[in-house]
């Protein structure tokens, strides 16, 4: 596929139209967040909460959010090369998270016959199909909220029975299930990269993954052993950006 096709794909992915609709969607969500904020603040006052406590909640949440938001911005940069800036911006500001978006985009790309999420193979239809899969794929928790949140939370407002029996009971499998699911996910990709080296002598994906793992190990060391918890906010996006930079140099050294 030529540079011209890549250029025309990028014109769609970074078009003014997309900036406009994404801007409108984000504006709507900011306005609704403001409505939620004002209503809960007023109700807090009505039920006798101290204004200082409410203001402290706003200030602590705002300051807590700034650093992870910069990490999200780095994610937007990482994703923008393949999906354009406006769509990446939308996906990482609404519902999604970097891990989900990239994986789903990659699955969707393979489902429409591409070899992966590669700019050189993208076109307008691939973009809209991938976008639609990413959107529908993440609606699970929203659907649960719309249909089941009221009934589910009511169970927690009822007085608890058999508390003695509950005590000492081990935690459920739910948390481990999510971790196991992600282990399976990562195993599939790492397995494919190793297979690509052995069968096709394509070293770049595995080397890029290895660089990201080494950088992540460094982040984990400083976060957990040196107690620099703030770094945790940047671990995934930081590891990825360093590994992607390494991929440029590795490509020059060893080729594709």
């Amino acid at each position: 596929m030529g540079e011209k096709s890549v250029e025309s794909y990028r014109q769609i992915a970074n078009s003014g139209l997309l900036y406009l609709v994404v801007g409108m969607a984000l504006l709507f969500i900011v306005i609704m967040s403001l409505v939620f904020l004002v209503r809960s603040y007023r109700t807090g006052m009505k039920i006798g909460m101290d204004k200082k406590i409410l203001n402290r909640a706003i200030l602590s949440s705002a300051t807590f959010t700034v650093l992870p938001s910069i990490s999200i911005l780095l994610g937007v940069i990482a994703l923008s090369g393949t999906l354009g800036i406006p769509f990446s911006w939308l996906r990482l500001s609404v519902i999604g998270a970097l891990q989900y978006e990239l994986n789903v985009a990659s699955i969707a790309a393979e489902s429409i016959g591409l070899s992966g999420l590669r700019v050189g193979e993208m076109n307008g239809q691939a973009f809209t199909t991938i976008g639609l899969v990413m959107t529908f794929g993440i609606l699970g928790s929203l659907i649960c909220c719309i249909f089941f949140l009221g009934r589910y939370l009511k169970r927690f407002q009822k007085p608890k029975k058999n508390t003695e029996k509950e005590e000492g009971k081990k935690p459920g499998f739910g948390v481990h299930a999510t971790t196991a699911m992600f282990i399976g996910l990562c195993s599939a990709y790492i397995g494919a990269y190793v297979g690509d080296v052995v069968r096709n002598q394509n070293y770049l994906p595995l080397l890029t993954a290895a660089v990201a793992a080494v950088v992540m190990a460094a982040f984990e060391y400083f976060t957990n052993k040196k107690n620099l918890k703030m770094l945790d906010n940047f671990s995934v996006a930081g590891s990825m950006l360093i590994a992607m930079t390494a991929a440029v140099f590795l490509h020059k050294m060893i080729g594709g």
Partner: protein
Amino acid sequence: MEQKEKSLIFEKFNRSMHILGKATLTISIILLVCIPFLVGIVYDSMPDTGGFLAGFGKVAIIYYPVAIVEFLIYTPMLGVGGSYLTFLTGNVTNMKIPCVMNAKDITGVVDGTPESEIISTISVATSAIVTTLVVAVGVLLITPLQPVLENPVLLPAFDNVVPALFGALGLKYFAKQIKITVVPLAAMILLCVCVPAMISQTSLLIIPAGALAIGIGYILWRKDKI
């Protein structure tokens, strides 16, 4: 203030949160679904139905169970308003949950009380607004850098964004539960080396790899090994 009066105000607040939350989520879903179709109509690039169904099937198998687990685990700590906003604005485990826990801790509210629900809604709403503003400013700043980001020299970087992600995530999750990791990782390596056709089919590999990891995790959990 009397407890009864406080309960009435809070119940009214929760009812309004449910109405507002459901309306916001429904409108947002419509907006989000419309975007690919709008681009498709304007640029004559409508989504491919077969590709969409195949992709969505694979994604739903993995992410819908994860979504249900997240819904069951996180909503009791977020409360009504906090839940609607958290799942709408995303970045749940990496930002919203820690942010809410931090706000509750700082303000000293007790879990399960109306005060706790108010604080979590305020916390999630503030967090969502700040994130959107920070990212919006950042996007405005990076837009002039677009020609640099699109330079062909950087193509290998963006073509390897997925390996970069799974290298980083792999280390994080493998280190978390090494006992669950060994068998699925070895099985996937073996499969891709012996059956090269699977190398480009990672979206299919995810299903047996995930099932294997969950099965092993469940056995280990039953035996109190994790």
